[in-house]
């Protein structure tokens, strides 16, 4: 007889006297295996970042209890990250917007009046009409983030008559896309899984998760013998898990890449037949990179010359199953398109395009667009407000920073209305004061969001949106590199909470009040059927598996096909750039030296944060309650700063305070903090007044080719804050 049996028995003596036979049954039950929960399992796709990982929601009595990965979802390799798991905390966030709110006080003062939906939609329609008649249709700006409903914002803008639509992308990755598009004719996907040698620069794939690349990178390393070399001024988790890590001097990645090209060409380590048949401009490139020796790059990058030469040889030896990982952190410098061109060119020399372990072309997904005829407006402006200010902007993404400057200057025409859905420029665009100025310039700002973001906080009308678990979404085609090309959709998992409505219903409501109803005269179900008209089985398959896979070709897509470039080949030398007066090959210029006693502020990600959208997530908040300033041990000592001390960080555009994290995991000339903290909105109770806002500090320089923000060009002073 054990203590366990004894106590169990004697416990029952007392209990048995009171409860009788019922408790005997209870004991039996306690010993029996735990019963399975009464779950209703429903498919959906995550929406806590842009990856759209497949998930299964476990629902009990109309309440989501747990979000699990969909094991059949190959794009994310059957996983759900911490943020995906924390989706519940976003949906059930007590700070969520519950009903339409109309601003009563000054902008940002936080005085709101609850109004009924009908009144809100009447007002939005009326204000949009006013702006249109007073300032032409282009006098209204539309901004939307990455979301399955975002396309309806673009549709609305077009039928309303405005060319001015901006996305989040010019604050993120458009310069990288530009560089690869202008080299290959399209933006590639990386076949990380089958690669034998990967150089990771300007990306942090084990923290900034991209599916399937992040998962495949570990499989490639651990099971396929892939070598990973990382360049990063920070010792990130990616750096920690790499075979080699070099704390590159920020802004010098191009020198490293050009030196790789130098060695590969000088030592003839490329496949001459491939270069001859598939690329344009090898002679010009050879001449151009003569000057960029490993010795030259070593001085620029603070990476030993012999390592650069060795890495070039190892990389070429592993080719074509080798790559310079394209990366997404391309909003870094004023020449970021040219920096990424250098990445693209080295990949060109490796001959890895369209091959296992290299860069892949987009695969056929099978979805079709749903076309419509937009009306013509004679009174309209000639072009977007941000047109012709940089030479190679992406028309469908725009440039947020160029647009903001143009709005502030009324150049070439005024914009006085702004409609914003699921993006938060107040929290993601550098130089927050300027975004506030831009807000103040507006007659009327409408924000549709699930939370009172800082952008909503500065708006006139705030409309509560449904979360991803409450609404019907159109289908979305996803590229999953070698894993899949697939289609996902979302159906409501739970009843819409509070008075929330989907963006589509909001657009439909406003359009109907503006005589534009015919452009939204359909249901999402009808829309999906049009999208899937070429793959009629897709909707049924998605109901069954949560995802539809198109069995499209992975490799050799370009066999017998021409490249969508001027030379119809991979352009090592870009003829179009030459015609436009841009450098046809990347020319290295040394980055501005960090001024004495200052630091370069760099941005970055971790696996628990999606910019500002997770800042108020009660689960994720437990991991990162506030952001900190990473400061090198040596630099901290020089400044008399101890770990945990409150410091003031000041830049040419702003000042913030936060705790210092004294660490050896960053260069002495660089500091870093996570984005998303210290919101102005007091209705984001966990992130308001906590940590520091990085966008209050970042200066608003941009890439001269695409207008992409350059977030690594701000120098800051750091001083110990004396209480």
């Amino acid at each position, binding site marked *: *007889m*054990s*203590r366990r049996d*004894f106590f169990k*028995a004697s416990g029952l*003596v007392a209990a048995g006297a009171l409860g009788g036979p019922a408790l005997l049954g209870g004991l039996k039950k*306690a010993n029996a295996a735990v019963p399975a929960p009464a779950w209703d399992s429903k498919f959906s796709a995550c929406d806590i970042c842009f990856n759209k990982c497949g998930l299964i929601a476990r629902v009990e009595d109309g309440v989501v209890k747990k979000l699990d990965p969909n094991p059949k979802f190959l794009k994310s390799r059957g996983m759900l990250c911490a943020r*995906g798991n924390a989706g519940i905390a976003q949906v059930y966030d007590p700070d969520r917007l519950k009903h339409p709110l109309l601003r009563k006080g000054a902008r940002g003062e936080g005085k709101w009046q609850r109004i009924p939906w009908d009144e809100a939609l009447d007002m939005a329609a009326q204000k949009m009409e006013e702006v249109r008649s007073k300032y032409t249709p282009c006098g209204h700006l539309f901004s939307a983030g990455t979301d399955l409903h975002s396309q309806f914002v673009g549709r609305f803008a077009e039928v309303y008559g405005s060319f001015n639509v901006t996305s989040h992308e010019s604050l993120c990755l458009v310069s990288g896309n530009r560089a690869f598009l202008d080299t290959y004719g399209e933006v590639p996907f990386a076949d990380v899984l089958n690669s034998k040698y990967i150089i990771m620069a300007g990306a942090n794939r084990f923290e900034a998760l991209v599916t399937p690349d992040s998962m495949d990178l570990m499989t490639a390393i651990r099971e396929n013998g892939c070598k990973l070399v990382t360049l990063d001024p920070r010792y990130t988790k990616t750096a920690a898990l790499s075979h080699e*890590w070099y704390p590159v001097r920020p802004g010098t990645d191009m020198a490293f890449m050009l030196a790789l090209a130098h060695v590969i060409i000088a030592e003839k380590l490329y496949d001459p037949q491939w270069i001859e048949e598939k690329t344009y401009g090898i002679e010009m490139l050879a001449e151009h990179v003569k000057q960029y020796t490993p010795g030259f790059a070593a001085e620029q990058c603070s990476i030993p010359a012999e390592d650069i030469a060795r890495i070039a040889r190892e990389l070429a030896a592993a080719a074509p199953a080798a790559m310079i990982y394209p990366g997404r952190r391309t909003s870094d410098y004023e020449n970021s398109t040219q920096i990424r061109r250098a990445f693209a060119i080295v990949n060109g020399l490796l001959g890895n395009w369209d091959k296992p372990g290299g860069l892949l072309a987009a695969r056929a997904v099978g979805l079709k667009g749903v076309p419509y005829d937009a009306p013509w407006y004679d009174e309209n402006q000639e072009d977007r407000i941000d047109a012709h200010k940089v030479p190679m902007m992406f028309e469908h993404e725009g440039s947020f920073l160029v647009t903001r400057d143009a709005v502030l200057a009324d150049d070439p025409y005024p914009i006085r209305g702004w409609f914003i859905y699921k993006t938060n420029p107040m929290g993601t665009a550098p130089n927050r004061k300027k975004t506030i100025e831009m807000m103040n310039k507006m007659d009327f700002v409408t924000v549709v969001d699930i939370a009172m973001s800082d952008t909503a906080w500065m708006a006139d009308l705030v409309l509560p949106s449904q979360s991803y678990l409450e609404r019907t979404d159109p289908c979305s085609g996803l590229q999953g590199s070698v894993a899949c090309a697939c289609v996902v959709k979302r159906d409501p998992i739970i009843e819409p909470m509070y008075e929330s409505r989907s963006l589509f219903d909001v657009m439909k409501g406003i359009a109907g009040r503006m005589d534009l109803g015919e452009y939204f005269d359909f249901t999402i179900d009808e829309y999906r059927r049009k999208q899937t008209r070429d793959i009629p089985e897709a909707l049924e398959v998605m109901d069954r598996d949560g995802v539809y896979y198109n069995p499209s070709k992975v490799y050799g897509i370009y066999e017998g096909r021409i490249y969508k470039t001027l030379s119809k080949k991979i352009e090592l030398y870009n003829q179009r750039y030459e015609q436009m007066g841009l450098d046809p090959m990347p020319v290295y210029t040394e980055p501005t030296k960090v001024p004495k006693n200052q630091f370069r502020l760099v941005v970055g990600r971790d696996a628990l944060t999606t910019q500002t959208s997770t800042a108020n997530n009660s689960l994720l908040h437990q991991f990162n309650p506030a952001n900190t300033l990473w400061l090198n041990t040596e630099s901290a000592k020089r400044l008399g700063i101890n770990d945990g001390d409150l410091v003031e960080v000041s830049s040419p555009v702003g000042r913030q305070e936060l705790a210092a994290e004294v660490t050896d995991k960053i260069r002495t000339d660089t500091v870093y903090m996570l984005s998303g903290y210290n919101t102005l909105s007091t209705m984001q109770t966990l992130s308001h007044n906590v940590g520091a806002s990085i966008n209050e500090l970042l200066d608003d320089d941009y890439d001269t080719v695409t207008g992409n923000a350059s977030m690594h060009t701000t120098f800051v002073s750091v001083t110990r804050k004396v209480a």
Partner: protein
Amino acid sequence: MAQQLAMVIDAAKCIDCKACVAACKVANSVPEGQFRNWIKQADDAPVPGKASGKAKFQPGACMHCDNPTCVDACPTGATYKDPATGEVVIDHGLCIGCGNCLPACPYGARFRNAEKRKADKCNYCPERRAAGIPPACVDTCPTKARVFGDINDPESEAGRLYQKNKDQLARVTARTDTKPNMFYIGDPGTPDWGGEAVVPASMVAMKQTAPLLKAVVGLSGLGVLAMLGRQLIAGSGDHKEDTDA
């Protein structure tokens, strides 16, 4: 052979993304600021250039030990090792929240649940297993570093990994060797962080004087059982193999 549920972990695959920690918190409604599982980090100073290639991050949780000191420390028998599955189980009906078991775990895997005020730790998500799906941390892991199952079953993924890597399996080497059932393939990353099991003297004495106590406890127990009848004897017979009596 009876089951031994265990985790076989490839720590070198762990990217420290905390998906397992977040998934566990949601699945088990773990109170704010408390955690049933974790990822340890090797405190290596970064060296530019060639890295060592060693594992840097180590996922962990209750290791459902073969020699569970927490069972020794539990005065009520609420904590016991299930002979059928090899799990270390907390019977919350018997737990009095005394906290004896917390320092008795050399790995710090136990905590007092701030809401339930009872001992808490990883239980391999029994509700999920009953529904035919893996424990939340295993299911959600992006790189599938965590593998769960019966290591005595060569057909299971955990058993297959266990057999295949038998020669290089490593455990966390705490100062008190409790023979944990959490196995790391190759390099466990940070192996030596486990501490010493602190079991209250009275409980140690109870274990040392087991034969005498067995008689005393057994006699009183027999009295109780006699009063309650045969059904209870059958009901209490499931856990005869407890180590402490």
